[in-house]
């Protein structure tokens, strides 16, 4: 229910940078449904554990469209929506490295 992960890659810069740590949990979703702007961590068959912003949640299927902030982000624009069952949780604590 609780995961500590380290951010790798630059698709969420400047909000999340390589080397930042995040604490992730599903618990917040028991109290409030996922909505655009949430930062979630999920499993992807090709890219494994990924972190992205929620862009849109399909009301009927629950499929989630995710996006990064960087123009070169690999996200739902390239691999489509993700299933709710793939979601590990929402970022509940962001521990940043010191910004320059």
């Amino acid at each position, binding site marked *: 229910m609780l995961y*500590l*992960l380290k951010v*790798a*890659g630059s698709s969420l*810069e400047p909000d999340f940078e*390589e080397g930042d740590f995040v604490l992730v949990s599903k618990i917040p979703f028991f109290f409030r449904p996922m909505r655009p702007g949430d930062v979630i961590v999920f499993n992807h068959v090709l890219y494994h*554990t990924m972190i992205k912003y929620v862009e849109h949640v399909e009301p009927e299927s629950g499929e989630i469209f995710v996006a*990064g902030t960087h123009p070169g982000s690999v996200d739902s624009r390239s691999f489509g929506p993700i299933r709710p069952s793939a979601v590990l949780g929402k970022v509940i604590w962001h*521990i940043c490295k010191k910004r320059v």
Partner: protein
Amino acid sequence: MFYELLSRIDRLVGIRGASAHCDIPCGIYDPHQAQVAALTVIRMLDLMADLTNAQKTPTLEYHNSISRQIAVKEEHAELVKREVRVIWGDYLKQEHLDKYPELPGLVHKIMQLGSKCRQGVSRESAMDLLAAVNRFAEIFWETKGIATKRVKAPYKPGEEIVYPVL
């Protein structure tokens, strides 16, 4: 404090990664955008100085123009940092750092100067930023075996800029 603690734990046991996957990889890297952004910072400072010197009594029009120029200065100083960070993080490899030991210090300097240009209105700082980005561009093209030349930009503020000789 928490970050330091987690970094130590990471070094000891290895914390699992969450990929903010970005590179396709497209392999398209070019410092030109950072250079143009650095020139834009200088240009905005010049426009701000001209406007302020010409305006004895600030008007609504003045406030509007100066606000827009500040916003563009902010945006482009940050763009310099972002473009250099992408090349630093995605393109430059250990072999480049070994060959150009000045690189880490140079990139750090660009980050600091970018912030300084956002915070203040010093043209000198903006010129220092352009100089550092130009040096970064020279090294970048050298890593690709491409010679460079320094020329005056053919548009205002007309400062010197590094171009690859293609």
